[in-house]
């Protein structure tokens, strides 16, 4: 392992490597700080040109952007009161209160250190666990793999926000769209709509993502006419938050563990991790009066959890080839462009990619903490970047990228259609994450299900093999829980209301 790390370090110490990691980290921080865009938009825009890059370098660039974006999200939250990314929502609740009180440096310093201390150990843990999990996972066969994909899709549907039936509808739609084109086993045509020959190649994920993310975001930002908010705050130099960290050390560890576990679960990622950690610490707090009015633990918990979720999400990606969150889907797509299939074998067949990814993640965390501690007074300037310049470049790169995805106008049309689809999803409240996850996992699921059934007739094998059976049961239970949980909560609420009414009647 050390040898691979040394090689990865050597390759990242080249001019190209340094540019990728430094530029990726800083670009991530800037885009993370600006509300609305986020680092995933930048990765989507860069995906079409990823085929020109070396896969290991591409992974280094992408992970630097992700870590930068995750860390930079706190800047907009604390200084503007608008979350830079959805993961930084909890930071607004308490962080912005400090700014209103004239002390933005304290929450910013805590957030910067929480980001660093959240990311670094989680990535180190991922390095060690990935190898062990991948070694176990190479013994999985078609049945287990199909069951794992089934479990991942249902977990994303069951645990993601929004209406469950609509989330599942999105997954069903993705399964249908993924099956357009040639059949993966016998190459016969399926749903070659209107006899258009371009459908034979299927629907390209890059064009789809460019429409779902970049196209939709810029269209809605323009439609809603968000005006540039003036940033009048002056930010001083970084102050070592030793006292805050020491006083809240137990809470920091709890938040880190919550982030790691949630990051590991497919489809949840940073937003859920930060909210879970924030609510846990709020629940455990002895004095709740300061929460929401400027409690430093409110900043520390969310920032730690969302960053430790990065390492958590890398584990299923590297060890199993299952994306932990939306950015991991983009990682998979970038590798697939190079005909590298993420699977438990990835760590054996392409160790240079895996270890470059880990090394870049560690280096990026260090670069970001250095920039954010030294350059803290420049944070307000990041929020003053004129949106109209940034958005127009992003949309041109997105449209060019959509064309480059398959080098035809069909993929450009796919992007435009998926942009409309994303707007429809928003109107009807369909979460796009189950759609995206099902779209990427559906071909893998189909391949394995059909090979399994062809090898031993019938679907009995999925239930007689213990690992496969466990995955199927877990996935189904999570989905069922998602359907039942609101009814249980409603029942409890009405019971409480009835008890309150009864008590009021007795009092009367």
């Amino acid at each position, binding site marked *: 392992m050390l040898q691979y790390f040394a090689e990865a370090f050597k390759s990242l110490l080249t001019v190209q490597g340094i540019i990728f990691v430094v530029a990726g980290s800083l670009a991530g921080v800037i885009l993370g700080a600006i509300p609305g865009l986020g680092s995933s938009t930048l990765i989507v825009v860069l995906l079409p*040109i990823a085929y020109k890059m070396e896969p290991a370098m591409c992974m280094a660039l992408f992970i630097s952007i992700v870590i930068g974006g995750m860390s930079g999200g706190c800047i907009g939250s604390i200084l503007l009161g608008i979350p830079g990314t959805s993961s930084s929502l909890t930071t607004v609740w308490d962080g912005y209160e400090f700014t209103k009180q004239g002390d933005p440096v304290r929450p910013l310093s805590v957030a910067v250190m929480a980001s660093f201390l959240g990311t670094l150990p989680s990535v180190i843990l991922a390095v060690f666990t990935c190898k062990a999990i991948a070694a176990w996972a190479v013994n999985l066969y078609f049945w287990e793999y199909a069951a794992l994909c089934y479990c991942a899709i249902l977990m994303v549907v069951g645990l993601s926000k929004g209406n469950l039936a*609509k989330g599942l*509808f999105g997954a*069903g*739609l993705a399964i249908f769209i993924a*099956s357009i084109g040639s059949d993966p086993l016998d190459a016969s045509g*399926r749903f070659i709509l209107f006899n258009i020959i371009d459908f034979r190649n299927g629907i390209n994920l890059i064009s789809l993502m460019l429409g779902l993310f970049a196209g939709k975001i810029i269209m809605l930002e323009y439609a809603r006419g968000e005006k540039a908010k003036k940033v009048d705050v002056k930010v001083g130099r970084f102050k070592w938050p030793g006292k805050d960290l020491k006083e809240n050390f137990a809470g920091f560890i709890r938040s880190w563990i919550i982030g790691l576990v949630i990051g590991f679960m497919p489809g949840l990622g940073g937003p859920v991790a930060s909210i879970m950690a924030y609510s846990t610490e709020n629940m455990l707090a002895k004095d709740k009066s300061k929460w929401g009015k400027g409690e430093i633990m409110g900043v520390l918990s969310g920032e730690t959890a969302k960053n430790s979720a990065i390492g958590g999400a890398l584990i299923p990606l590297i060890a199993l080839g299952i994306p932990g969150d939306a950015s991991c889907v983009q990682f998979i797509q970038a590798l697939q462009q190079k005909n590298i299939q993420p699977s438990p074998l990835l760590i054996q067949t392409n160790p240079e990619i895996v270890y470059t990814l880990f090394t870049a993640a560690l280096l990026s965390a260090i670069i970001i903490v250095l920039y954010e501690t030294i350059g803290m007074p420049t944070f307000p300037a990041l929020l003053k970047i004129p949106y109209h*310049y940034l958005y127009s470049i992003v949309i*041109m790169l997105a449209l060019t990228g959509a064309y480059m995805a398959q080098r035809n106008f069909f993929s450009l049309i796919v992007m435009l259609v998926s942009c409309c689809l994303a707007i429809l999803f928003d109107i009807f409240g369909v979460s796009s994450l189950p759609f995206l996850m099902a779209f990427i996992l559906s071909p893998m699921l189909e391949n394995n299900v059909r090979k399994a059934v062809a090898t031993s007739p019938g679907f009995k094998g999925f239930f007689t093999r213990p690992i496969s059976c466990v995955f199927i049961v877990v996935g189904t239970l999570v989905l069922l829980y998602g359907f039942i949980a609101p009814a249980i909560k409603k029942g409890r609420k009405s019971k409480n209301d009835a008890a309150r009414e009864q008590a009021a009647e007795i009092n009367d």
Partner: protein
Amino acid sequence: MKIKNKKDIGFGIFGILFSAWIMYYSICILPDAKNMNDPGPRLFPLIGAVIMFICSVIVLIKPEPVKLDKDGKPKRFLTKKQWVSAAVMFGMYILTAVLYYLIGFTATVPIMLFIITYLMSKQTYPDMPTKKRIIKALIFAVIAGALIYCAYILGLQARLPKGIIWKMLK
């Protein structure tokens, strides 16, 4: 008073019809005759359609409660004015695609950068004089266009559309 969620009812009806259409076409796909055990290429489109059908029925039977705004009126996704703006931006996307086809990548990028920047700057800085806005957008379009050209054509050597008009003129 409970307000009917027309959106969800529409969603349910559309979902049922759409999934029924997919089911019909999926059934028409012939299974692979070589391997009798393989459930065939129609299995997954059918699974997708069945999932959509069931979910649409659930949404139709049990629509979500309507979200209300501060005034107690159903919350709107976008106002009429915002829909017009969204349509304008989507029109820009289509125009870019059309211009790519007609005049190619190199000419389209600066033109569209100028138009989109100008349109967006109108929103972000409404008080800025038009002349100043045009000049700023123009300078930005030229510089950013040149950078994009260098990155894609010279750097990545990407094969991008050259435009049929130039071909026809030759």
